[in-house]
Structure formats: structure tokens, C-alpha cells
């Protein structure tokens, strides 16, 4: 097998599963260590730099990091990364002094941003400190976009949104709220150097069954209904509510309905429970609030009497898979019926660009989506960039933030007449953590605690107040224990074959049998004859040659606990534990925000 090139930043980055899985590549273990050290401000700033909305994401993120977390492979459940992020936001002090301090000397370039959601605000955050004059347009009365209008207040209080949107507007970003942009052409005619479109996917998919039109008064499109609830226009709902759809919007709908008078609220989905798009924890929260989720039911008809809704009927289906594994839902012939007073339709979102003229050089595909480069986020009109849900359809906040960073880099390069296809490399540091014999600058004692549950407000109390936050967050004590569960995957096992005397000490001590000294071979075959077979090919094997006996060292990264015992038991220092810090490239600010890392603080 080819020896591993550890100089390629991707290699060690991949070992930090959480960071690799995070669209914004937030250095997760780094901030978790800071939380464990009680340095909440530092932990917050690392997050802020990378994902812009730590307090918001700490409550609402879709957490792609957690299924990736190594802890979930060696134990039962991943580290509660998302809720630790919230800890940093909850317990930090005043960080305003650590934000980039304006006014920033202008570079004379003007950028228009359409939509004050996470994508648009992210672009503004990156560009303003670099001297761009950024103007953000949004039809809503305040910033946040779907963060504010779609996420119920019992999951995300307004105060958190206000604070984190404020950090961005404080950078000297001009906001034009209550301003709907009716024409992109008109906007471009105002002479902006670039336009970023972060207008989201604002249209809820329609339900198309008989009776829909007749009973329209009691059938609501989920996202519209949620924003009406959010802005206080809707304050009640019928006692019996059916929520259609299996995504997170459906979960927000049903839980909101429970708080607005819904007593018998049920979620009904076409597919199976397991295939639902909603995050498992959101399903759990809904079920905890006495909301049953009924599956394999396809809407058939809205039953109404003289325009008054009575209930809905559904075709009972079952999933059949063909030999290619494709699923189809086959009607069983059975029809079931549920009585209801209101129906909330949360079966998907669509993009809508009625305000973008067809003759301004922006091409759309046959699904009505703009043609956007997935690296630069540039559209076919070189001045116009897309990001967030507007670029590739509905995703999550953290994706929008990641898009924003990429788009901001592109806009910066475009405005400076540089080649936007050339992407800046991430900053990488790799530093030994050795302090002495059996002494490391990170806590290498592996905790065996199981995942801690975030305390919730009592159900009785939370169901009567739609603004009462359900999750109370970890207190510092629980946070410390949960932080200790992190395996410090960014502290890498780095092997120097020249120093190795092949004494087997590392092999013997490794608690997860991930190190093998053996004869070289092709990867597929080699994987089967390691001390513990390494059958997950998505996880790399660290291969090193140059040993005296001609054998190779092969380390399966999959299960490594990063406990450092291989390095502790190594008599020659051939193994070393080195902290790998990968800093994604961002637009260079005129005066850089001060994000202290733990290492800098030690120096």
C-alpha cells in the first residue's frame, strides 16, 4: 500500500470526523477542550469565526458532526457536540470587544445581499471587516430570515437571534428591512459591484388532493403558518390537528400546534418512520409531547361538509424494494380516516425566484433552480452569487453558513479582479502535545461516561407557553462531564518510522488494537489481516514504511481513542501526539478578529 502522506491537510482533517463532517469545518475538539477548561469566551469565538451563529446553532443545528463522531463508534452515543456549543454561548461573558472592531477602512466596493438569513448575514460578516460596503435587504422587519420566522421560540428565543444578528450588523453592515426586492435587474442597476442572493426556499409545497380547496380555511401551509405564529399573527388552532410531512418543519408545526390549543395532534407521513427526514432528536421531542407519528399513509382526500373540514382519509401503503434497492409505496387497499379541525401541510419547500428577470444572464435549470458553481457559488452572471437554500434547495443553517464563507471568498476575489476558481488553502498547524514522560497538554484520560441528557423544562409548563424554551441547556458541571467524553481526535498520532525499533510496545498497549506491524500488501487484503480487521473503508489506514525489518506500520484510524498510550509506551518517541488545527480560509479582514486558541494562550 502507498505510504500515507500526512502532509496533505485532508489526511488528518478526515481523522477529526466531526470537523470533517461539519460543512463549515468548525474545529470541534478544540472548542470542547476550551469549554472543559471553563474558557467559554474562547470557545465561543472559535465557533463564531467558523460558524457565525454559535448560540443559534447550539440549539438548532442539524448536527452532521454527531453521527460522524468517533465516540458513537467505540461506545453507544456521540458526544453532545451541538449542546456543548450552546454551553459556550450561554456562559460566555461580554464578547463584543473581541469582535472585529470597525469602522473598517473602505475598499470602495459595494455588495448587495438579498435575504437576511444565515447565508446573507454570513456573507455580510465575512465581507464587512474586509472593507466592503454591504447592504442587506429583507422583507421582514428584522434580521434572521427563516431562523427567526420558522424556528419556534420554544426552541430558539428571540434574544439569541437578536444578539448574534447584532454582532454582524454592528460591523457596519447596512440593513434595509421591510424591503422586498421586486427586481434583481433593478437592484443591479444601482451599481453594486456584486450581488449575493440568499433568499432561501420560501415557498411551501402544496397539497393536491380532493377537498383541499373547499376546506382551505382550515388547511395551512406549514412554513407560512409557522411564520405567522412567530410574528404573533396566529395565536390558536383547533383541538384536533393533523400535520402532514416528516421533516423538521413538520416537527416544529406539531409542537407549536400543541402549544396553541391542539390537544389531539398527530403527524402523518407517507414513508416509514425510519426514513423520515426529521432529525431523530426532533422526532423524540415531538413524541415526548404526546404527538404520535403515523407512517405509511398517503393523503387521499380532505373530508369536508359544506366547506367545513371534518377529517382526512389516507391510503395505507407498504414499502416494496426492487432488486436495485429502489423503494416504491404499494397501496394495500386499506383506507383510514382521521377526524380533525385543522391540517398543517409540511411536505416540503420550494425555491421561487419570481423577482429574477430571465434576461439578465442568470440561467436556470429545468427544475427552476439557478445554475450555480458548487465551489465558487457564482451564477452564470459573473456578478451574481447564490448561497444557502437559494443555491441548491432546502438544507440547514450550517450549510448556509458554509456557502456564505465560500461565496464571500469568491465575491472578494471577483471584486479584486482575481481568479475565483483558485481557492485559498486552509491554515494548518501540527504541534506536539508532549509535556514530559506520561504528560500531555491535553487530557488523555478517556472518560467512560455515557452521553448526558440535556435537562428539559417540565412538560406541563412548556406546553402552555409557546415562548418558554424547552431545553434548558447543560449547566457548567454537566457540560464539563460531557466535554470529557470528547476523544480529542484532533490530537493526532504521528509516526516517525526512522525512530521506531519495532518493540511492539504500542501494539500491546493500544486499547482498541488499531496498530499493526506487518508485511506490506494491497489495501483490501491488508485491511483483513490487521490486529483488528479494518472493514470500514471510509476510514483511512495510516501506513508508514521505512522500518528496519522491511515491514510496514499500519494504523486503523477508525477506532483510535487518541489516548496517547502508544506514544507514552514508545521508548524512542517514534509516536508523538500532535495537535492538528485546521483553519478554513476566509476573507482576510482589514484588522483580524482576535480568536485566541488554547495553544496561543499557553505560550
Amino acid at each position: 500500500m502507498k505510504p500515507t502522506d500526512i502532509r496533505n491537510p485532508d489526511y488528518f482533517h478526515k481523522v477529526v470526523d466531526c470537523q470533517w463532517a461539519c460543512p463549515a469545518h468548525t474545529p470541534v475538539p478544540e472548542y470542547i477542550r476550551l469549554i472543559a477548561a471553563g474558557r467559554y469566551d474562547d470557545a465561543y469565538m472559535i465557533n463564531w469565526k467558523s460558524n457565525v451563529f454559535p448560540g443559534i446553532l447550539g440549539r438548532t443545528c442539524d448536527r452532521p458532526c454527531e453521527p460522524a463522531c468517533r465516540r458513537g463508534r467505540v461506545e453507544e452515543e456521540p458526544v453532545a457536540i451541538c449542546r456543548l456549543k450552546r454551553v459556550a454561548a450561554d456562559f460566555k461573558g461580554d464578547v463584543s470587544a473581541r469582535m472585529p472592531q470597525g469602522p473598517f477602512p473602505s475598499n470602495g466596493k459595494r455588495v448587495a445581499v438579498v435575504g437576511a438569513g444565515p447565508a446573507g448575514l454570513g456573507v455580510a460578516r465575512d465581507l464587512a471587516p474586509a472593507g466592503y460596503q454591504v447592504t442587506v435587504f429583507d422583507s421582514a422587519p428584522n434580521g434572521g430570515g427563516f431562523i427567526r420566522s420558522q424556528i419556534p421560540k420554544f426552541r430558539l428565543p428571540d434574544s439569541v437571534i437578536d444578539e448574534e444578528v447584532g454582532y454582524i450588523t454592528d460591523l457596519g453592515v447596512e440593513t434595509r428591512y421591510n424591503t422586498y426586492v421586486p427586481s434583481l435587474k433593478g437592484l443591479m442597476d444601482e451599481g453594486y459591484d456584486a450581488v449575493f442572493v440568499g433568499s432561501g426556499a420560501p415557498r411551501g409545497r402544496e397539497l393536491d388532493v380532493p377537498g383541499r380547496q373547499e376546506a382551505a380555511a382550515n388547511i395551512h401551509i406549514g412554513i407560512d403558518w409557522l411564520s405567522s405564529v412567530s410574528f404573533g399573527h396566529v395565536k390558536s388552532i383547533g383541538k384536533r390537528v393533523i400535520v402532514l410531512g416528516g421533516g423538521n418543519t413538520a416537527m416544529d408545526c406539531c409542537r407549536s400546534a400543541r402549544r396553541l390549543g391542539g390537544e389531539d395532534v398527530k403527524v402523518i407521513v407517507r414513508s416509514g418512520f425510519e426514513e423520515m427526514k426529521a432529525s431523530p432528536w426532533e422526532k423524540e421531542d415531538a413524541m415526548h409531547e404526546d404527538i404520535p407519528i403515523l407512517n405509511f399513509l398517503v393523503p387521499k382526500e380532505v373530508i369536508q361538509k359544506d366547506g367545513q373540514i371534518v377529517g382526512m382519509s389516507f391510503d395505507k401503503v407498504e414499502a416494496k424494494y426492487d432488486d436495485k434497492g429502489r423503494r416504491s409505496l404499494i397501496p394495500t387497499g386499506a383506507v383510514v380516516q382521521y377526524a380533525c379541525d385543522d391540517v398543517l401541510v409540511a411536505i416540503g419547500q420550494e425555491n421561487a425566484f419570481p423577482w429574477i428577470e430571465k434576461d439578465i444572464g442568470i440561467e436556470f435549470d429545468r427544475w427552476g433552480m439557478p445554475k450555480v458553481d458548487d465551489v465558487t457559488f457564482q451564477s452564470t452572471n459573473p456578478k451574481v452569487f447564490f448561497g444557502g437554500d437559494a443555491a441548491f434547495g432546502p438544507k440547514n443553517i450550517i450549510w448556509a453558513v458554509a456557502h456564505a464563507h465560500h461565496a464571500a471568498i469568491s465575491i472578494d476575489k471577483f471584486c479584486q479582479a482575481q481568479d475565483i476558481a483558485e481557492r485559498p488553502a486552509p491554515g494548518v498547524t501540527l504541534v506536539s502535545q508532549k509535556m514530559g514522560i506520561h504528560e500531555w497538554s491535553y487530557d488523555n484520560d478517556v472518560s467512560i461516561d455515557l452521553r448526558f441528557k440535556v435537562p428539559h423544562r417540565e412538560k406541563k409548563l412548556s406546553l402552555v407557553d409557546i415562548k418558554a424554551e424547552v431545553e434548558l441547556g447543560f449547566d457548567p458541571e454537566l457540560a464539563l462531564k460531557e466535554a470529557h467524553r470528547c476523544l480529542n481526535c484532533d490530537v493526532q498520532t504521528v509516526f516517525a518510522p526512522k525512530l521506531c525499533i519495532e518493540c511492539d510496545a504500542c501494539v500491546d498497549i493500544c486499547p482498541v488494537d488499531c496498530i499493526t506491524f506487518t508485511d506490506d500488501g494491497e489495501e483490501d487484503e491488508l485491511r483483513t489481516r490487521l490486529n483488528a480487521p479494518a472493514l470500514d473503508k471510509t476510514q483511512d489506514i495510516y501506513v508508514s514504511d521505512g522500518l528496519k525489518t522491511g515491514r510496514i506500520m499500519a494504523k486503523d484510524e477508525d477506532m483510535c481513542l487518541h489516548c496517547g498510550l502508544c506514544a507514552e509506551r514508545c521508548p524512542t518517541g517514534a509516536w508523538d501526539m500532535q495537535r492538528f488545527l485546521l483553519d478554513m480560509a476566509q476573507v482576510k479582514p482589514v484588522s483580524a478578529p482576535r480568536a485566541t486558541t488554547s495553544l496561543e494562550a499557553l505560550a
Partner: protein
Amino acid sequence: MTFLPKPKLHHPKLASNALGFTRRDYEGSISTLCAGCGHDSISAAIIHACFELDLPPHRIAKLSGIGCSSKTPTYFLGNSHGFNSVHGRMPSVLTGANLANRELIYLGVSGDGDSASIGFGQFAHSIRRGVNMTYIVENNGVYGLTKGQFSATADKGAKNKRGVPNNDEPIDMVSMALQLGATYVGRSFSGDKTQLVPLIKGALTHKGAAFIDCISPCVAFNNHEGSTKSFDYVREHNAAVNFLDVFEGRDEITADYAPGTVELVRQHDGTYLKLRKIANDYDATDRISAMNFLQTHHARGEIVTGLLYVDPDAEDMHAALGTATAPLNGMSDEALVPGNAALAKLNASLR
């Protein structure tokens, strides 16, 4: 400086043996020996061997004397019986324990100081009595605990860390064991578990005095240029005569081998030792030719390793003494103390 315990978390696919134990269940507390010590590899090999043989940990007694090697029983088989004896006296304590309870599996762990110097006589007599045991000498050629003076097994001419050569003739523990009548004799190297683990398994299943001399480099005091017990030197001069596999039933031996390359040895307890020959002319069941072979190759500067001698029909001390078949702790008081009448009868028979 702290010695963290090995994390409890283990590989999710870690195998269990017939008793439902994982290999990790055969571990002891964390080693406090120098990092990279060969002894730790031998401990790991013992753990592997006991796990693979499905040995119940509570039926094993591990005994040792004094020295780096004799510290190691703390680092394996944390759920077994242990006895850390006076310097060099492990063989006598083991012999006594074996006489009292023949049903335990006895594992003596000693070093070149403990067995070739202060305990030389003890070693010799336990071997010649045929005590049913596995006796492992973790042989590094130096006194590690007292800063690396040459031990009695250091080769003549070998240099210490400061370059001063050793003038004394070495004691070859393997030759001694062969001469004293050990019925299972092997030599191996801590850096080669594929050879060492089966050798230990064979010794543990052997009924009789099984002796393994295991060269175990001392990374602190005997792993330099000029040492004859360093990782590099042993790897360069290793002359393995065979590789061993241990099977519990004959059916498991299915692979085809070219004639003359494999020798099957059936032991008393029904286990098979399968010897894959490396030196074709080597006969592991011939004590005298084994001794000749050792001397010839030693003169050439080679370190002969492998299963060097086995007597599959060996008998142990209990057979020779005709002792009771039950362990003493399983006998009634009446049987253990038969009373004055029985004593009088015995005395009368001797008059």
C-alpha cells in the same frame, strides 16, 4: 508523572472466547516498566495465549521472584492467583503450591537474575523434579533494576552500554533445561509474537516441566550496538527451527503441507502441536540431537529459537511421587489428619 490505566473502551468487534471473555479480560493493571520493555510484550503474549486457550483466569496461578520480569505478573491476568516470592525462590513456592493443589495451572515468571544467579539451584531442581508448570525466563542479559550490570546469561564479549565487554561465560538456560530433563523446551523473542504466543500455549497445555527462555531486550540498558540481546542483534541472528501451532482437536488441522515440512505431536491432554519446520533436519522430539544442534549453532553465533524439544508422553512430579489425585483443599479433615492409629501403623511398617 502519571500512569493512566488503559481505557476500558475496546474495539467494538473485539472477539470473545469459549468462556465469553474478551482478551481484555485477561489483562492486569498498567505496566510501570520502562516504555518499550520486552517484558511487556511477553505479558501481552501470555494474555493472548490464555485467551486463545479459553483458560478460566481463576484456575491460573502466576508466581514470580524479584526483578523487572518478576514485576510483570501484576500486568497480566488480573483475575488469577498470584504469589510474588523472595528473590530466586519462585520455583520452590511453585513446587509447594503444585503439591498442595495439582488442579491449578502454574505459570512461573522469572528473569535471568532471578533464575540464573540467585535462584539457579531452585530453577534446576524444579525442572529435574518435573513439576507440571510453565516456566518463563524473561531474559535480557542485564540487571535492569540496578542500572544494567551484566547478568549470568550475558554473552562473553557482549558490550555494556559504556562499551565495556563481558568476560564471563554465559549460562545458557535452554541447554540447562534440556540437560536437567525439562520435557518441553523452547526459546523465543519478545519481538516476535507470532512465534511466542503458540510456544506459550504449547507450554500451558504440556503436562510436565515446560521451560521457555524468552529473549527480551532491555530498552534502557541493553539495546545498543555491541549488545547481543538487542532488538537488532536478535533479529539478525535469529535462527528459528520451526513455527508452532497448537490445536485442541485433530480435525482443525486441514491445510495441506508438502511432506516432511510439518510434524504433528499429540500431547497427553489431546492437544496437537503442529510444527511447521524451518530447519528440515531438526527433530524436536530428540533431546540429544537438540542439545547438539544448540551447541553447533551457538558456536556460529546464531540464536536458535522455536520449540526445541518436546516429550509428548511426559509425566510430572505427582506421577513420580504417587500422590493423591485430589488437591489437599478438597480432602476432608479425616483424610488429611488420619490420627494416631494410622501413624502407629505407618511407623510399624518402617521398623
